[in-house]
């Protein structure tokens, strides 16, 4: 508990993550990467929510497939400063 309180105290009030977009999302928004500033403790869902406040609202669904640091991640996955969050259209490989 001490350690965790210590980390919480030392954590920045906001974090910055790199948001990457692919395929249809990237094409529709005209860009494939942007920076998002989020409150400390933000999750993937918070990043999506922030992104959808802009032009992405009509393109990216509320619960898109997502990855954090190149691994598939659920919406409640917590983000840390510097993370790479990717929003993935429905996969169609193979």
């Amino acid at each position, binding site marked *: 508990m001490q350690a965790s309180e210590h980390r919480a105290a030392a954590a920045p009030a906001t974090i910055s993550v790199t948001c*990457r977009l*692919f*395929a*249809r999302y990237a*094409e529709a928004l005209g860009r494939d990467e942007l920076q998002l500033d989020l409150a400390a403790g933000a999750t993937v869902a918070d990043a999506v929510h922030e992104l959808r406040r802009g032009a992405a609202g009509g393109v990216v669904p509320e619960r898109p497939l997502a*990855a954090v640091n*190149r*691994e*598939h991640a659920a919406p409640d996955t917590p983000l840390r400063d510097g993370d790479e969050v*990717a929003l*993935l*259209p*429905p*996969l*169609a*490989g*193979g």
Partner: protein
Amino acid sequence: MSVEYLTREPIDAERLLREVGDDGRGGAVLFLGSVRRGEEDGPVVAIDYEAYEEMAAAEFERIVAQAREQWPEAGLAVRHRLGAVPLGEASIAVAAAAPHRTEAFAACSWIVDQAKHRLPVWKKERFEDGATRWRED
């Protein structure tokens, strides 16, 4: 792009079979997934495959590692082609060789399923008239 897993060149199926071959492995199974002319598609001439390349390579590596845990004696090789893939050419190839054929079939089929569900890859159909469309199965 990992040379191991992703390629912009035609997939060399013989090479995958050689990679997994070993004279202790009596059964080898190769899967080739190709650009298909579906009835509903109209005149598709090619499909452009795009990937989140760093993640696709990492995900392929995780899939192969998980397969190795399940079938420790198997030889495994995988490829996904990116860029424009003409009609009839392979976009994905998975080879698995094992001492017995049931393991080879199981490992190959498992990897293909996982790849289809997990690889961050997308495809855009290209039609005869130059039009394109993202295809989400």
